[in-house]
């Protein structure tokens, strides 16, 4: 399950610049309920280190500055790869469930 959350984060970030809390809320909105929200931060730290995402600090209307994440070209690439891998995996798993051999 590990790489899957990474892929979902990349996909959400690719749509528009988001900050941490927004990201967690969107994940929940899509149906991720059983994880603790903070889990995204170690992943975001790693994706920054691997230069898949970059961040900028922006002022917010209420409270302190927010850190907004956006995808780098490398991140776009990673997301593309993830999507292919995911659809392959999905087909394979479905084949298993439907007892469909190639």
């Amino acid at each position, binding site marked *: 399950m590990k790489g899957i959350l990474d892929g979902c984060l990349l996909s959400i970030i690719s749509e528009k610049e988001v900050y*941490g809390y927004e990201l967690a809320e969107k994940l929940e909105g899509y149906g991720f309920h059983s994880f*603790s929200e903070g889990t995204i931060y170690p992943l975001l*730290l790693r994706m920054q280190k691997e230069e898949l995402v970059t961040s900028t600090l922006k002022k917010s209307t209420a409270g302190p500055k927010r*850190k907004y994440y956006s995808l780098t070209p490398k991140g776009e690439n990673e997301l593309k790869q993830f999507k292919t891998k995911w659809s392959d995996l999905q087909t394979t798993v479905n084949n298993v469930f439907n007892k469909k051999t190639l």
Partner: protein
Amino acid sequence: MKEFELSKRSQTFIEDLRVYLFSSGKKEEEIDEIVTELESHLMEAEKRGKSTEDIIGKSPKKYMEQLSNEMKIDYKTWLKYYVIIIAGVFAITIIGDILNGPISYSLLEIGGSLVISLLFIMLTFWVFRLVSSRTLTYGVQGLLFFLLAIVPLGLFFGIEFADRSITTPVIEFGTIGTWVAGGITMIFLIGVSIWAKTFILPIVAAFLTLPEYLLGFINMEEEAMLIWSTIITYAGIGAYLLFSLKRTK
């Protein structure tokens, strides 16, 4: 809306996280960044009625480790602390010895101090990580800090003791060398104090060395003098710590 206060649990977690990452040797700017980010996340989540556990999970320790694993260790900062502590140890030793005339140190004393200081930093950071990531009783915490104080002290005594039976080359400073060393030490103590905005180092040095020296002028039995100077030393340092703690609050 603006003055929303974090729950006690979240506040404690944020403070502990800072201590944990700091004592894991992470870069200060990176610590600031992730701590502020999490703080505002917790704030927004709590405004919407979520609990601390909803964000960080059931084990703060595990979560701190996860974050720490993704952050680089800042060896430059580690080195900085090491140099400051080492220099502090030497400064306090030199100030204490200078009042008794020309100074000289054996290689064993110098090498021992370097090793003990390194050990002390590692031990300190280990205790900090332990105290910040686990729920420990006050008794256990007290014991850990007691160990932290007693272990280097014991090792220093051990070195002094060993120095009497093991002969290693001795570096003699001579009269002029002693004056120069004293001058450099003074400049260092003042410099560090200004840089760190605290006078703790020179004050500790003064309380460790002056009582014995000043009491030496009074006609007193050696035992009484030892007892009195020890009392003045620790009471003085204690009073200073209490005073500065109150002032910062």
